[in-house]
């Protein structure tokens, strides 16, 4: 089985975000970048499938040299090789085009992604790839079963799950709950250093969207704090009164 995992290199959620001087991006100084957490579920699923069916797992990322770190992380988890598509990430659509272009000649049986990358929080890549590569897809998947070429995926939706049936080759985007990603062992981290990362250059289209500005959400919360201190009933009465009369949500 030939499996491709798309990985993105994103700021750790816990790092503080500062706005850059251009007012359109973050200031990357001091920001810790990691392998997108959802992509860990995708990598794990690929490794499990390889263990079951043999084959090859290829981690691919579009970005600058720095994105190699995300690929290395996937290699340390156990992927066999990496591909870095060098190109400017002007918007998700153009990243999807560069990914599709790189993926097409490989002829993969399965393409795995995370449900969303935690930088732009777009959730666009899997459906876009599905259109660009003309392959069926199931997104936000929490359960996956593959029998021969038949694929059954459980998609998380409002109030429950949808059971989607499709067949290989196809695209799956992983949601938390699909599996428990392994931690790279020290020997595997060492081994990953000598695994190959092929570099190709993407031909980015100019973005179809442009960022006018980035700003921090202004917090205009009322912020009235009541201390219960020995009088929980009094606090409850006051809270309900505020919700009813001031916030008018009850």
């Amino acid at each position, binding site marked *: 089985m030939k499996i491709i995992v798309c990985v993105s290199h994103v700021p750790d959620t816990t790092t503080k975000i500062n706005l850059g001087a251009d007012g359109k991006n973050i200031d990357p100084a001091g920001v810790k970048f990691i392998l997108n957490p959802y992509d860990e579920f995708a990598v794990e699923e690929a490794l499990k499938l390889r263990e079951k069916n043999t084959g090859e797992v290829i981690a691919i990322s579009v970005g600058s040299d720095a994105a190699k770190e995300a690929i290395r992380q996937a290699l340390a988890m156990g992927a066999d090789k990496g591909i870095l598509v060098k190109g400017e990430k002007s918007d998700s659509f153009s990243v999807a085009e560069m990914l599709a272009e790189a993926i097409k000649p490989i002829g993969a049986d399965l393409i795995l992604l995370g449900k969303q990358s935690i930088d732009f929080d777009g959730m666009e890549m899997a459906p876009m790839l599905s259109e660009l590569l003309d392959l069926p*897809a199931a997104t936000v998947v929490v359960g996956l079963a593959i029998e021969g070429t038949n694929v059954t995926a459980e998609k998380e939706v*409002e109030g429950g799950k949808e059971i989607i049936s499709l067949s290989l080759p196809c695209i799956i985007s992983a949601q938390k709950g699909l599996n428990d990603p392994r931690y790279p062992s020290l020997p595997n981290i060492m081994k990953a250093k000598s695994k190959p990362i092929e570099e190709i250059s993407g031909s980015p289209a100019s973005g*179809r969207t442009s960022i*006018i500005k980035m700003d921090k*959400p202004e917090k205009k919360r009322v912020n009235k*704090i009541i201390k219960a201190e020995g009088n929980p009933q009094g606090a*409850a009465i006051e809270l309900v009164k505020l*919700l009813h009369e001031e916030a008018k949500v009850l």
Partner: protein
Amino acid sequence: MNILVYFEERAGSIRKPSYEAIEAARSIGATSITAVIVTASAASVLSDTVKRSGVSKIIVVEEARFAHYSSRAAGKAVAEVAKQANADVVIIPATARGKDLAPRVAVRLHAGYVPDVTALAMHEGRLQATHPVYAGKANVTIDVLTPKKVYSTRPNLWKASKEQAESAIVENVTVAFDEKDFAEQTKELVLSQGKLDVAEADIIVTAGRGMKGPENWGLIEGLASAFGAAIGASRAVVDAGWRPHSEQVGQTGKTVSPTLYVAIGVSGAIQHLAGMSSSKTIVAINKDANAPIFGVCDYGIVGDAFEVIPQLTEEVKKIKH
């Protein structure tokens, strides 16, 4: 400006976020709003409510194979209709289904797309869309450069307006589907029985590790039922196996924007805030006055949840009845 709004059908009726998307369209001064319904059987969906939503036209793509929904086929249908209807803007609610559908429509229309939009406004003749990024720590305002533009709108942020006089005309459009379009099929929808889902609820009561153990959720259920609320959970309690993942709010769970969000025994980690910071009113109950959740709430009670919840449940019952 011609705006096309996707009307999402589930179990024979149109879901609320579609009506909210109509409001988003109206708010940017649409000259004409068309609704598109992609369905296996139009008869069941085309209730008067749809006709009274204030749209001028409803385009129906009826195709028996949609008994097993396929996102690819739906994407093709919506893109075809957008072309035929000469839509400048396509708005799709950012529901579970819509988030999969909208990027497809954008690719098919070669259009720029802004996902999960929380604000849409006209500014000097250009449409500007706001989308939260970095787990809600920042917002980007985006200009779509292509002539056709696709947006998905976050549920619960626009208020669906009251029903209007029935004025919409209904038109059927035939789309030439091929086998491949239905290569993926939704066979089954397994609903968690009788529970209001956090993604759809107007009021949410979320509890976290401060509740000490799963055996204490009776208290949360009591309060939620007094409010008429859905129950949410922090990741800590989902990971501990106390609550199902479907209840998780936050970056790895669901993004919600209810009218009222009550967080109990939840510290307010950034990944949790990512999922609920666009809620209209936020209430926090926590025994630690320094918990970060107090920094982002409208109203808070510093106190022991086990003492406060029973009292609060009583007070809420009084006001609701």
